[in-house]
Structure formats: C-alpha cells, structure tokens
C-alpha cells in the first residue's frame, strides 16, 4: 500500500513537524522509495543484541 499525502500529514502532525502541504505528495513518494531499503533491516536477527548504552549516569 503506497503512502498517501494524507498519511504524510498525519505523520507530520504526530511528529510535531509543520510541513508545507505542498510537500506531502513528494514526501509520500520518497517514503515509499526508501521503505524497501529500511524495511529490509527486519530480516536481521537482533534479539541477542542490546541497544548500545549511550547514557552515562556518572557525575
């Protein structure tokens, strides 16, 4: 299912990004273009990999 301009509007709203409505169609197309590449990461087994610890609580 391809991304629709209305979907982009909803995503932008959820992300708090004030997007120019004229951009919605362009971004929908770009999101669809990137989706196969980014979605491919779901093929990599990462359950054994903890997210890197980036927080250091030392004072």
């Amino acid at each position, binding site marked *: 299912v391809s991304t629709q301009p209305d979907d982009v509007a909803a995503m932008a709203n959820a992300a708090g990004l004030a997007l120019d409505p004229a951009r919605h169609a362009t971004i929908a197309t*770009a999101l669809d273009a*990137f989706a196969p590449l980014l979605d491919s*990461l779901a093929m*990599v087994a*990462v359950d054994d*990999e903890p997210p890197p610890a980036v927080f250091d609580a030392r004072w």
Partner: protein
Amino acid sequence: VSDNLSSLDAARAGELIRRREVSPIELTEAALERIAAVEPAVSAFARVLPEEALASAQHAERELASGFDRGPLHGIPVAAKDLFDTARVPTEGGSRAYLGRVPANDAACIVRLREAGAVLLGKTHTHELAYGVTTPASHNPWALRHVAGGSSGGSAAAVAAGECAIALGTDTAGSIRIPAACCGVAGLKPTYGRISKDGVMPLALSLDTAGPLGRSVRDLALSLTVLAGHDPRDPTSAEVPVDDYLQGLDGGVAGLDIGLAGGHFSASIDPDVDAAMREAAETLAGEGAAIHDVELPLADYGAATAFAICLPEAAAAHSRVLRERPDALGVDVRTYLEIGALRPPAEHVRALRVRAAVRRAWRTAFEGLEAVICPTLPTTAVRADQNVVSLPGGDTSVVAAYLALCAPVSVAGLPALSLPCGFDRSGLPIGLQLIGRPFGEATLLRIGQAYERATSWSDRRPPLL
C-alpha cells in the same frame, strides 16, 4: 617552479623547508597561484583565505628561522571542508540554510593543525550538509564533467588538482573514501571516536568521523599524528592511546595476514575495478603478505543500516533549519531531513542493534587478519548528470552504488583507507579500500605505504596538471 611546488606531498615539502630549499611563504604563494589557475575549472574551494594564509606562512617562516619547529606540517598549506568551524570565517556546510554562519571558535581539528604550524588556505566545497555522494559544486580534476565524489568532494579535488597537499574531510558513510577514490587521492576514515569532531557540523553523530585526504600515505600518517587523540569536548571521542603512526610506516607487509573480501564486496563490481582489485591483492602478496579470502557478514545491510541511523540523527541535528527555513535547503537534502523526522523512532533503535550485530560478526571475521581489502567503490567517478550506474548485478542508483562498499565499514565503526590502485578504460581513478581493526590505523597506514611504494598509481597527476 610553482607548479613543481604544488605537486609535492607534504612530507617532501617539509623536507625542503628544513633544508631551506623552499620557504612556507613560497609554498603558500605557489598554492595560491595554483588555486587561481585551476579553480575556474575545478571549483574545489568554497572560500579561499589568501591574506590569512600568507600571514600564517610568514609566521611559520619566522618561527622556523628562529629555530622553533612545530613538526612536519609546519609551514605546509592545507585546506578544510566547509563543515569544520573556523573562527570568524564563515562555515556554511555547503547550504544556503547556513549562509552567513560565522563560528566564534575553530574546530578542534583546525586548532590542532594550526598548533602544528599548518597554513590554512581556505574551506572546500561539501555536498550540502555532507548529505550526499557527489558534491555538485566541484568537478573531478581527472575529467571535469565527472563528479568529484562526496561529500568531501572539494577536499579531494583540491588535493588531486595540486591546490593543497592535505585537506580535511568528514566521513559518515563514505564521504572521505568516495571522493578519494573518484579523484585518485588517498583518504583515511579513522575509527569512530579517534579524531575529535568538536566544532564539526554534524550529520549523524553516531556515525560521523573526521579525517585527512592527501597525495600520499605518509601525508595521512603525518596528519593523523597531529589530529588523533581524546578530546573531552567531543562526547563521542575515544579514550584510547594514540599509536605512533610514523615509526612502523615503512615496515612492509611481509608476514601480515590480509583478507580479500568476497560476497557483497565482489558481487557487483565493474570489471575494470575488479581487475584492479585482483592486481592489488597480487601486489600485496608479492610484497610478502598472506592473502586470505574472507566474508564480512551482514554487509548487504550496511547501506540500509547507515540510512536508518543517519536519517533521524540528521533530522535531529538540523531540526531548527527544518522548522524555520526549509525552503533554503536543496531539494534532496530537504527530503532526506523530512523523511528522517517522520520515520518511526523504533527503526533507529533497531538499526543500532543491527550495528551491534555487524560489529560482533565482523570481529569474528577479522580473527587472524590485520586488515581486509576490497574496492572503495564498485565503479569510478560518474558523469555529473548521471543518476544511474550499470553494474554486472544490474542498474543501480549512484547513491546506492557509492555507499555499497563504504557504508558497511562506517556501520562497523572501523578505520578504512582509500588509495589509488589503477585507472578504468576511460582513464578515471580506481580506489582500493583497506579496512582495519578498531584503532588499527597504524597497521592500515603501514599496509598502504607498502602498496604505494610497490606501485606508481599515486604518482599520476590529472591531465590538467
């Protein structure tokens, strides 16, 4: 005479300075003359700083004359990608969105170069915000209608065209190695955290690295000696001792175990590049290295992982611009930033976990090996109007092709050196990539030096020289 001076690498120029056969002022004047002569064609520089450079050269000359020697880069003309902050000099990241941005302070790398006595000639073009692989503002000195590569395209073009001996670049997913390969120069992407990024405009903080481009491996070693080290002002800076990059540089490769990457790294490569790669492996074997076939797992996911990390981190880094003046951004970069703001955050976390998996798998693959070699790019510099490249595996976008062999190394956080290793049938340079172990820059440079000495590829100059 000035043409001869501008073709010297920094190491040789430094020797001549110490023998008083040439002065920093003469070197700087020669570089400025060279810039004036070739910039109309090459357009490597966003901003040239002739007065500041000559003042620095005069200062260097006075210091050296008084016996105060700051080391091998003292009096050597250098340049920096316009992503490195320079005090009171605009640093705009190649973007109209940052037009007129003037930092108060120098980036840590600039401070270190100045303390080493280097002469800053100016700021080089970058692909906008370092977010791209072509650097449209610059032209490839080997073929002006072809791209210089990116994002540090101006730095690579400046070195290749003899406008400076050494130039700083940054590399998030290939941005030092890609232009080094396209322009036929040497470029070093250090281990993540090896060189301070304080004062460097970020793209993706968890992938970004800064490093040198130069005409010889020895120049990279000299540069790294100045640039490497922990910096408490950079939260990503590594507290790992700095090696002596010069001591073992001429040690050769006899007895070293070096991997030749197969699988992803050899699957869809231009035949000329593939032939050059096999010849490079034979050269290293001829120098005494033991070459082993090796697979680096998960490399197929390198570009996807790099994008999944870079998209949201870049959107965060440039969120203010995205909110306040998106119209000032270029079309492609604006779209990347907008997508980065919209993709689900869980994707970023997943990508970080994939990166951890890559790191673990590559650690195993590197067991018993000092380095792994592969092409830097599956092809050479494309025409500036070209968006698609034909490879044995099929047509692919230039972005995907250029990231394919570089991005996995960035995801793994490892150091990598790109060196000239031949020319394709069109006369365009081919890049050899040497991938090292974490903080294994000294060994990489040693291997690179042995390769460079055994071949003459690095001695070639573009026809416009």
